[in-house]
């Protein structure tokens, strides 16, 4: 009895570790939810820090949210997949007319909600986004000519958010290609935006409800032996980690948590 609190403290440490490691191993058993190969565009390595205080290697998942306008010249009439109907499905209350006087406060008070998001790799959504981007860039070139238009395909992530649901299984059923679409937990926020900068109804702007992905777990730990090569290349050319060319074989387990199963570097 005298040692009960000590035994309880040890039990908390051991129990928490069993649960955490068991969770990690459970995720990696059975058929993976997704098995995909991504490149340095989608998994960015920022290189070793200047202070060298952290020897771990972490990749950062980057994606495109087509709901966001990339710059002011972006086509305004583009309809977002994260529209009013989708937001209502995700649990947001969209009952107030977005153009009404109270709408700003009503939608501002709604907190971001959790959901699962489907990210499609190098598929039709990426092609559509790229075409929109190219058209917008051409229009921009006509207005303000610049010397070298950016080759967006080589630098931007080809992972594009295409769908969301509160149930990951239903989302997977709608996107069955496990080599093309990954499912990730996300935090989604709701807001208002003008339908068009030029659309005025009376003295008030016409608004619409639009969601945005506030957060997706982005950091992916790279274990040994794969981390060695990242560290070696980073030390060879410090601060240029983002320019390294590599392909990462990634698996997402039954709990939708990823792990690295292979890395190929290109010279």
């Amino acid at each position, binding site marked *: 009895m005298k040692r009960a*609190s*000590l035994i*309880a*403290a*040890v039990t*908390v*440490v051991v*129990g*928490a*570790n069993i*649960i*955490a*490691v068991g*969770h*990690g*191993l459970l*995720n990696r058993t059975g058929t993976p939810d997704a098995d995909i190969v991504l490149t340095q565009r989608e998994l960015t390595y920022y290189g070793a820090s200047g202070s*060298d*205080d*952290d*020897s*771990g*290697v972490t990749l950062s998942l980057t994606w495109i949210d087509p709901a966001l306008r990339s710059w002011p010249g972006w086509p305004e009439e583009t309809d977002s997949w994260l529209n009013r109907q989708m937001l209502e499905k995700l*649990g947001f209350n969209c009952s107030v007319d977005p153009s009404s006087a109270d709408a700003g*406060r009503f939608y501002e*008070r709604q*907190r*971001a*909600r*959790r959901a699962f998001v489907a990210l499609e790799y190098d598929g039709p959504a990426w092609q559509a986004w790229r075409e929109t981007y190219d058209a917008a860039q051409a229009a921009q070139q006509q207005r303000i000519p610049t010397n070298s238009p950016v080759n967006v395909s080589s630098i931007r992530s080809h992972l594009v958010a295409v769908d969301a649901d*509160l149930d990951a299984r239903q989302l997977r059923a709608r996107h069955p290609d496990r080599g093309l679409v990954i499912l990730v*937990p996300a*935090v989604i926020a709701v807001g208002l935006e003008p339908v068009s900068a030029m659309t005025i109804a009376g003295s008030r702007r016409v608004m619409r409800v639009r969601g945005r992905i*506030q*957060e997706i*777990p982005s*950091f*992916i*730990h790279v*274990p*040994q032996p794969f*981390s060695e090569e990242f*560290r070696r290349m980073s030390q060879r050319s410090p601060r240029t980690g983002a320019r390294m060319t590599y392909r990462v074989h990634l698996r997402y387990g039954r*709990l*939708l*948590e*990823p*792990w690295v199963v292979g890395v190929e570097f290109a010279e």
Partner: protein
Amino acid sequence: MLRRELTSEELQAVLLLTPEQRSRFEEWSRTRLAALAQQFDVDTTASRKRVSWAMRIASTLGALALCASVVLLFTRYWGYLNTPVQLAIVFLAPLVLLAGAEFAAQRETTHYYTGLLALVALASFILNLAVVGGIFNIHSTERALLAWGLFAILLAYRYSFRLMLAAGILFLMSYGAAAFTARMGYDWLDFYGRPEHFLALSLLVFAIPLFVRHSGHSDFPSVYRLVGAVIFFIAVLSLAEWGAPSYLPWKTADIERFYEAAGLFLSAGAICWGIVRNWNGVVKTGATFFVIFLFTRLYHWWWDWMPRYLFFAAIGAMGIALVWGFKRVRAKMSRLEDEAAV
């Protein structure tokens, strides 16, 4: 203290001891103090008490520095280790440090080294779960707060460590708010975004000593009350002044006025209740927040239209009035204590 009082002229005029009685008292007090110092390492003089405070501060600062050192040492080298070794190190670190704290507790009466090792054990456990989560890319969850809170509370009760108890209470309060936020379908990291969760939780923490007896840890109820009162008033202040969102279905301005008035009345109530129950921490917390609520209200009323010199003069006058008020409160407290003694 009694020995010092006996030498005062005033007491000698009332209580005159014969030389024999005096020497017997001196002998008894010396033996008793020596026994207490031997058994519990208690401070038998004012200067020893001051040194003890310095030791407490030094051990706490040392523990915090060691916590930072452990975390930085691990992150500096963990990338060179393979996964099983990483897992083994972070799993064993809190257990080894806990064993060290237990070893120290059995050898010292005033738990300076024990407290230091216990605090580093807690930091290692926090690092432990964070690293396991990172290795397996586990989606962040509020459940780690529960494990850290339980561990801190258990160590606090085992080694009578108040700082650890406060840390454990804060972890468990955060877990409660985060778990509720997650169950509602929101991001758990947004748990601090609704201070009303903390209003309910802090009242619960404040009430714990009313229902749970702490015969073995007589200094713990004041920690529960202090943490509960401080978190409660910070939550009210954030709703009244910092524009934090509320569950109340009113206009923002009305919600802010409501919580501002509630903050004033409840902080004044805390002072009164603290006086009646002789809870010093509650009286001080209530007085601090009463002054903050009062001055922020005056700021809203006067800052825009009053000349600055007049505003600060009014605040100064208010401060003098508050000192006068608190002096009266103190006099009343002394009177009540005297009556209770009679």
